[in-house]
Each structure stands twice: as C-alpha cells, then as structure tokens.
C-alpha cells in the first residue's frame, strides 16, 4: 500500500485499484477545529480535481478535491456525527471516502510522502 499527496493537502492511500482519501494532518491543523463534514454520494463518478467533500471548521469552509478520478464506493459516515475525528486522526480514522481508481496513471502527478513533507516545510 502506498500513499500520495496533492498540493491541496488531500492524501490517497492506494491498494491496487482501491483508494482511501482524506486530508493531511497539516491541513487539519491549519483548518482548526472541524465542525462539519459533507460527504459525497456512494456511486458518484468523479474526475481528478472534482469537489469530493466539504469540510467546515471554526475558521473556514473548504472543499476537498478528488486526488484522482474514480467512483465513490464508501464514505466515512462517522464524520457526520463526530467531525472532530478529522482533527484527532486526519491520516487514520478521519478518512473521508473510499473509491475505485479509474486510471492509476493519474497518481504519477501526485507527491509521495517525502516530497509532500518538503512541500509543507516550504509553506
């Protein structure tokens, strides 16, 4: 299993053609206390960069973009009642959705963990 990051601070953990998407701990920290998460419908087809979810904190409302194209297969319903999970465990229990990746070559444009860390340090 490998993990990739976008410049907009989403991560995707990839296992074959299955992906799990969330926002990075850096993003969760920048947002502050998350108070609301809006998740997509299961079965929705998304292109890379489409708005996949909305995350609202005490500071701001932000879109979460799909790191790659594919179909939503599962959403983390727990976040609707417990949005604080995003702050507590952004890269674990605070995942947003699972998807079937349509074209795994789209992963090539994303950053790996080391590159992403470097990217965040430069911000």
């Amino acid at each position, binding site marked *: 299993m490998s993990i990739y990051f976008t410049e907009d601070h989403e991560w995707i953990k990839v296992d074959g053609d299955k992906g799990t998407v969330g926002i990075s701990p850096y993003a969760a*920290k920048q*947002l502050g206390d998350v108070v609301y998460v809006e998740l997509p419908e299961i079965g929705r087809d998304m292109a890379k960069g489409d708005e996949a979810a909305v995350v609202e904190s005490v500071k701001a409302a932000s879109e979460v973009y799909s790191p790659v194209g594919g179909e939503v297969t599962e959403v983390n319903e727990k976040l609707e009642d417990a949005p604080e999970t995003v702050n*507590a465990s952004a890269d674990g229990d605070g995942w947003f959705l699972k998807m079937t990746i349509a074209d795994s070559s789209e992963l090539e444009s994303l950053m790996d963990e080391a590159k992403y860390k470097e990217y965040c340090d430069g911000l």
Partner: protein
Amino acid sequence: MKTEGRPTSPVAANSNDVKTVSGSKALEQGTKLIFETGTPRRTGIDFPAAKGRASRLGANNERQGEIGLPGLSEPETMRHYVRLSQKNYAIDLGVYPLGSCTMKHNPRLNEKVARMPGFADVHPLQPVSTVQGALELMYELSDWICKLTGMPAVALTPKAGAHGELCGMMAIRARLDADGQSQRRRVLVPESAHGTNPATAVQCGFTVDEIPASGDGRVNIESLKEKIKSDPNSVAGIMLTNPNTCGLFERDIIEIADLIHAAGGYFYCDGANFNALVGRVRPGDLGVDAMHLNLHKTFSTPHGGGGPGSGPTVLSNALKDHAPVPYVTKTEQGYALVEHKDEVSFGRMCAFHGQMGMYSRALTYMMSHGADGLKQATEDAVLNANYVQASLSDVMSPAFGGICMHEALFDDSFLKDTGVDTLDFAKAMIDEGYHPMTMYFPLVVHGAMLIEPTESESKGELDRFIGSMRHLAERARSGDVESFKQAPVYAPMRRLDETQAARKPVLRWTSPSETAEAAE
C-alpha cells in the same frame, strides 16, 4: 482533545467572576435570559377578556396549551434590552476596525431625514401621485449613483450586497441568453474573493473557475489569460472586487476588463470596497459592466445588526436593458414607477421598491457631503488605513509591502513562535475596549488580521488604537503567553466555546421542566 489549530475551548471560567449577591458589577447590571426573567403568569398589558365573541377559527384550530412566552412589565422589558445593549459594542462607543465591513459613523442628520413622515410613513401600494417626494428622492439617488460610478443605469431594488451581486449576474445571464450565448456558463473568480461571489455565480446557474493570486496579493494575470484561452467560448464573465479583499488596488483592472470583453464575457465588479474609490475612480471608466454598491457601507446607512442593507446595482450600456423592475422615471406629469417587465428585463428582485429608509439616509449623506466632501472622505479613509499600517509595521507584519487602500492587512508572522495566535490577539483587543479586527480572512493570508479604520476616526482616536495594538504586539513577543490565553478578562463573558457552539448548537431555550422531562 486537540490542542492545535485555532484554540476555541474555554481556558478559564466561562463567565466573569462576580462576587456581588445581585450578580451586578456596579454599573454593569447582571442580566438573565428574558425567559428566565419573565414568567407566563405576569403581563405588562391589562386587556379585558373578550366577551360575547365566538371564535371564528373553529374549535380544532385553537391553541390548546400555554404558549409559554415570558411576561414582563414595561420597565422590566426596557431594562432587559437596555442592559443587553450596554454589553454590546457599537460604532457609537468606539473604533470598530472590522475589515471588509466599513463600520463608519452614521451621521445623525441621516436619521433625521429618514424619519420625515413623507419618507418614513409611506406604503408601497400608495398611489404614485401621493408619494412624489419619495419617488423624487429615489430618482435623485439614482442620478448620484450613476454619476459617482460613471455608469448609465442603476437598479435600486436589491436589498443587500449579495442580492446586488445576484442582480448583476442575472443581468449578465439575461444578456448572454438574449444573444444566443447560453453556452457561456463559466465565471472566473479570484481566490481572494468575498465568499458571496462564487456563491452568487453558482446560484445563478454558472460554474466557478478560480484564479490564483499572484505573490503581491492581486489577480495573477497570466493565469487569467490561460483560463480564458483554455475555452474562451465558455466564459460568461469575471467577478472581481476592487480594491480587493487584501485591501489592494487591482492595478491591471483595465487589462482584465479588456481580456474578458475580448473573450465575449462581462465584468462584474464587487463594489463592497467602493468606499476607497468614491470621487477618485469611476468604475464605468474601468470597463465594469455591473457593480453593486453597499449603501450600508459606503454611504453610511446603519448595518451590523442595525441593518437593513441595501445594494443598488449599476449596469453598463450592454446590460441596462435587462435591468429589473420596478424603477422610477421622470415624466411631464411627475415621477412614475415602471412596474411591468418588458421582454428583455429579467424580472423583479423583490416585491416592492427596495429599502426606502436606506435611500433617504444614503442620499442625505451624499448631498450633505457634496461631491468634494465624498472625495475627501475617500481620501481620509485611505489615509487612515495607511497611517495604521505604517504605525504598526515595525511591531506587526503587513501581509504585502507598499501602500494599501482603505484597509490594512497583517499576517501572523509577527506572532511566530510566541505561542500567541491571531485569535488570542483578537481576544486581548476586547480587554483593551476594541471590537477585534476581521480575522482569518482573507484566507490567502496566514492568520490574517484585516483592519479598516474608515474615515470616521480622528488622528487622536487612531493613535489611541495604535497604542493598544503596539502594546499587545510587544507583550506577545515578550513571552507573556498566559495573559493572552486568559483574555478576555474584563468582558461580561470570558472565552466562549465556539467549536462546541458550531458542532452542537443550542438553537432554542428550554425551560427547566422541559429539560427534566427530556432527561426522564
């Protein structure tokens, strides 16, 4: 519990420690909720019981139980609201530096005029022959607005800034549809835009394409060119605020307008910050096709809880035929209202004619200042913001170099490694007796603090404000974190739990008996 990000949980006692028996602190009276003060068994009005009248509602439609509203005597009611008002902050109390909001003084002359019976007591369905004075005022106001903006037409009716945006975008859509350009549905919006801009575009059936900012806080013109070039035939227009949300003048605005027009789109300018331009720049000269004015910001009508707002929207020659009804015309028989839509007008923004009380206040402000006075107000607003920026630039960190317009934007880099963040800083300002500046907005600047002093403040007031800000900045850097985390200490309520309020909002008061029932 998480400890990073913006700390919002209470770090100290929730309400201020009060040691008196009454709950009051000298002149500051202890106040409970109105539901806790009154009881349904008390009343301030003594109506005789209705006699000999049968209910026409029918037995099934009558209320069966008690409604549970609190009853209070007249003095109790007065005291309740006066006490609340004394816990509030107002422009009539002190500097109100809330950036992007233009909290300027509301001259009392405006209020006097707005209360004249010929303006205050008219009904929207009165025959027009009986409201000629009110219509003349609307006509005059339209004339002032058109001259100040250099635009040929104005729709007065929109009732707020975002409503004006909707009006402008509906006019653009009507024009595109009339020209057989209905495939144009892409609206370009800079990432620093007011949140209402993309919301308006989507509400109008457009899609939003975000333009990134350049390093100096303005629209990235190269990126704009690429966005247009990628599919020029889908461009409906651009929504741009000038001066923008960073308090900076978009110096490429004419080039931006030309690019959009060349692509076949229209230019919506958000006029929320027109306070920085009145008398100096006419949007009509910049290629603007539509722009709303916030009468409640730029032209000193009350807002921020005192509302209502008013957002007249100016339209260019390309759009003016699509203006909404009603509007005032001048005929040989006097002033008349055009109430019915012809085939090109896109329709109606609201049932009647807009906010009369705001029209009378705004026109009073314009006429009492005169063209030269309005220009000076603009210059003073920009001068004041620059005075604040320059006076704080050595202890705080301006987000962008150079001269700002009507508001000064700081980032939180001056607080780096102090343990104090923007929120703590704002809370400490409350103890100093100031309403905090706008914070964490615009989002393009980290830990943003946006200060708009407006032209209302004298140099003396500004110096006092600057003195407080300098003191706080120096205290933060001296390592005094604890006092910031405790702030506000002197406010009626201490640090409130905003996170919990957003996650689990309590939207309705419940009586102790209801709470007990719910618990059973």
